[in-house]
């Protein structure tokens, strides 16, 4: 009670009295407090200030359990440093990328390093080079197990060796053996990829980090019996048998500085006068030596590998060329790549058919942070685009699932309002059980053939059991079409493209909230406009092996991309189809084709993709498709599920007897992700130390996170005082004292009387 109060009490006499009472109580309280320490010993309540315990919960840096783990982490993560340089040359329809990974070993031990990294899902990896000092060792393509044997042998013999293996079409592992103390080894891989085109916009995408995947635990087991007919067998059905291979250690961004600095250079030769060249998620520097050429570098030099690099470019002219034809002669065959964008203008006059749209939104923990915001915004935009005669439903899933309406409902304001509330209330948490959600979405309850049935699936695709999802789509797609919307900074592009292909739909990427409207508008243009259907391609003279063999429907603004292997470059290519209900055809004379690069690889890559799809569709047995893939891969020197690249330095470097340590290089958490949401809620998969770190991460100050702190829940403080308990205990003691007093007195009286 300071002077301040005294002044005020003069103004308010009643207040003064209150303060006198207050001061009296306070003085009494202070005395009580002193005694309370003694009382504590009597009272059974563990802490008189219930709030002290709570305070310790809220203060950061209190939990010391992680410090030991950090040291442990340090031992493995500091061992090998990695830097990456990506150099891309775009030559008109294709691009060639050279990815150089620099493995530096600052330790005093001999080390074997493994690094799991992503690549474009439709890229063909065909070159591996290992640079040791001034020696360059070029890798060979081998069957996967054979390459593994060669690598293991070299590793044991102390020779430097590098191995590139494919885990998924967009996830690869590089292993480098026998990096000596203080040494630096460069591993270089190269791949070929077609440039993506959509409407007027061309783009390329370089994924830089493998997002942590949710791997469902095996629930239903199948049984494999032994061949000897003894009736004994082993139960085995793991949805993700290779889960260890696609789950490298992930660094918690709240606790560690980002790793794996990456520099990117793109030499863009578009083949036409360029308009806008834009990077979606990185700041870039652009030089323009010519009107058709740009050299793009990252403005900040090197960036941490924690999000996809996406570059888009547009022609200076109003419209992109609607036809492109390129050829390459390799061996005794000619390869052709054709891009044709079918006309779309007259479709606007057609009245679109009423649609039934099922929206599926992934609200699992991996969507935490910015991804869920993007997904919600996209879905809200989509709901706003529905027409009154459309029907719709909304499904959300994590490791549980909710279907908003029992069956699809008309898109009237009442239902839309309910859906908006449902979507707004979504929170990201839990695992990613995608298959049941896809199954629910594909279940055609209405069966109304007058309506077009479409499934719009919003997810980051962070699952390891892609194959199960593909099989679900194949088995249940019926007349539904699946449109994938890839969300976040590092979506699983392989899952998006393949699911859209199997579901005969289209896909789009949304990597930032600002992209939502533009990209969703593009997707809706595709959804709302009838596709070009019944497409077929025919060569007038040449004998051709065309991929895709059965040409899928093409959506508005999407080009039809055909690759073919020809015996001779003569005659023309005729493409026929139907735009709406009108026939459409185009004839391309082959002699007009321009020289292209790496087209044979692209053709082979697409043939391999076709074989994988055919296997999923059960059109080919696994053995048949494996045979086709292996032949193509060995022929065209491409890394696939069945083939790897291996390079061995013949001169041994590690002296005999020196031990070799394994170092699994950690990766960053994709930008915008929430570490706690991903690793906090997967106790059965996350190793113990990750869970421990998660516990620490919670008490980190929120400001360090890229997103508004989203610990999955707020800790509520302790909100009970010990007042009641003390008063009761006090009363009990007083009563006890009274009883004792009376009892004693009576005894005294009795003794006196006696």
């Amino acid at each position: 009670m300071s002077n301040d109060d005294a002044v005020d009490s003069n103004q308010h006499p009643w207040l003064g009295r209150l303060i006198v009472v207050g001061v009296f109580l306070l003085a009494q309280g202070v005395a009580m407090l002193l005694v309370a320490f003694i009382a504590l010993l009597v009272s059974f309540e563990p802490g008189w200030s219930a709030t002290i315990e709570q305070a310790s919960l809220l203060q950061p840096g209190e939990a010391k359990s992680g410090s030991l783990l950090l040291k442990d982490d340090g031992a493995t993560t500091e061992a090998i440093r990695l830097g990456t340089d990506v150099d891309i040359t775009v030559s008109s329809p294709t691009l060639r990328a050279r990815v150089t990974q620099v493995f530096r070993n600052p330790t005093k031990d001999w080390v074997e390093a493994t690094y799991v990294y992503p690549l474009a899902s439709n890229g063909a990896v065909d070159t591996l080079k290992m640079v040791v000092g001034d020696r360059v060792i070029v890798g060979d393509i081998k069957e996967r197990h054979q390459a593994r044997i060669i690598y293991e042998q070299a590793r044991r013999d102390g020779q430097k060796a590098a191995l590139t293996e494919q885990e998924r079409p967009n996830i690869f592992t590089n292993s480098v053996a026998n990096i000596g103390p203080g040494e630096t080894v460069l591993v270089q891989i190269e791949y070929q990829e077609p440039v993506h085109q959509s409407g007027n916009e061309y783009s390329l995408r370089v994924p830089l980090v493998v997002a942590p995947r949710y791997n469902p635990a095996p629930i239903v087991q199948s049984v494999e019996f032994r061949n000897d007919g003894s009736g004994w067998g082993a139960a085995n059905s793991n949805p993700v048998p290779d889960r260890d291979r696609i789950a490298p250690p992930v660094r918690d961004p709240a606790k560690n500085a980002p790793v794996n600095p990456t520099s990117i250079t793109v030499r863009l030769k578009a083949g036409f006068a360029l308009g806008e060249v834009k990077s979606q998620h990185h700041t870039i520097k652009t030089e323009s030596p010519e009107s058709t050429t740009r050299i793009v570098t990252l403005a900040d030099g090197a960036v941490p590998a924690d999000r996809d690099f996406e570059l888009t470019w547009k022609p200076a002219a109003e419209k992109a060329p609607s036809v492109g034809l390129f050829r390459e002669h390799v061996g005794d065959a000619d390869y052709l790549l054709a891009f044709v964008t079918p006309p779309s203008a007259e479709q606007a006059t057609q009245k679109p058919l009423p649609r039934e749209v099922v929206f599926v939104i992934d609200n699992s923990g991996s969507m935490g942070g910015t991804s869920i915001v993007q997904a919600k915004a996209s879905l809200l935009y989509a709901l706003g685009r529905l027409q009154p005669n459309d029907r719709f439903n909304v499904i959300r899933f994590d490791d549980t699932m909710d279907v908003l309406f029992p069956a699809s409902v008309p898109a009237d304001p009442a239902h839309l309002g309910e859906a908006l509330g449902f979507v707004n209330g979504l929170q990201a948490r839990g695992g990613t059980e995608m298959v049941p959600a896809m199954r629910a979405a594909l279940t055609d309850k209405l069966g109304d053939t007058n309506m077009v049935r479409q499934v719009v699936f919003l997810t980051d695709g962070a699952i390891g059991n892609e194959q199960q999802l593909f099989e679900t789509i194949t088995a249940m797609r019926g007349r539904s079409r699946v449109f994938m919307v890839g969300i976040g900074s590092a979506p699983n592009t392989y899952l998006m493209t393949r699911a859209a292909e199997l579901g005969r739909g289209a896909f789009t990427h949304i990597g930032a909230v600002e992209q939502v409207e533009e990209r969703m508008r593009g997707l809706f243009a595709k959804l709302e406009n009838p596709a070009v259907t019944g497409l077929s391609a025919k060569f007038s003279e040449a004998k051709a092996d065309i991929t895709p063999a059965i040409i899928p429907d093409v959506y508005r603004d999407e080009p039809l991309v055909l690759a073919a292997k020809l015996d001779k470059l003569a005659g023309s290519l005729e493409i026929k189809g139907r735009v709406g209900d009108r026939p459409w055809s185009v004839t391309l004379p082959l002699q007009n084709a321009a020289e292209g690069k790496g087209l044979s690889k692209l053709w082979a890559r697409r043939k391999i993709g076709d074989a994988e799809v055919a296997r999923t569709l059960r059109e080919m047995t696994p053995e048949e498709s494996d045979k086709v893939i292996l032949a193509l891969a060995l022929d065209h020197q491409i890394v696939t599920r069945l083939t790897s690249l291996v390079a061995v330095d013949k001169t041994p470097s590690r002296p005999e007897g020196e031990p070799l340590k394994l170092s699994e290089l950690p990766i960053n958490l994709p930008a915008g992700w929430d570490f706690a949401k991903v690793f906090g809620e997967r106790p059965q998969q996350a190793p113990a130390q990750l869970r421990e770190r998660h516990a620490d991460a919670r008490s980190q100050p929120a400001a360090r996170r890229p997103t508004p702190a989203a610990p999955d829940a707020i800790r509520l403080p302790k909100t009970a005082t010990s007042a009641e308990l003390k008063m009761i205990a006090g009363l009990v003691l007083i009563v006890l004292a009274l009883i004792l007093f009376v009892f004693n007195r009576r005894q005294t009286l009795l003794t006196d009387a006696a």
Partner: protein
Amino acid sequence: MSRLISPLVLALIGLFLFGDGAYIHAKAWLAQLLLERAFDRSIATGQPVKPWAWADTWPVARIEVTRLGASAIVLDGASGQALAFGPGHLHQTVDAGERGIAVYAAHRDTHFRFLRNVAIGDEIDVTRADGKHFRYRADSSAVVRFDASGIDPASQGFELVLATCWPFDAVTSGPERYVLHATLIGTGEQRFAIEP
């Protein structure tokens, strides 16, 4: 004479204990009076005003439930010291009236004793220290564990949560918390002119 000592000591300890308990209530009540004054002054001046010179916190809002005639001044932060004087505003959460969830916590036996009587549908008025007034309607309640409150700070709505210990009548403290959730229904610069 020695026989008198043990009941006397016992009585003394009992008295002190009782007094200590009563002191907590007295402190809670007295602090609110001082806080009321400080809060009025901070609305008038627009500056945070400390209720007493050595306080490490200051009033940030007033919560009222008109139907119950209950009112309390909310303090910045929910440290143990602050909670002894009034409900605390959890630092990780937004201010009342902002997009997100504002969480106020207080002791079940002092400032939030009234929470047990708040029914779903009741209106909760919050006046911020800058004089802005927000009206919320209680729409759900739940009993949760303190470390699994299910409150998402990144929520996109305009929401308010009042939290206290559960069960209300328990004597010792436990891990369970009572959480009353409310959603913004109205806003205004001044107090609402007409109270329902």
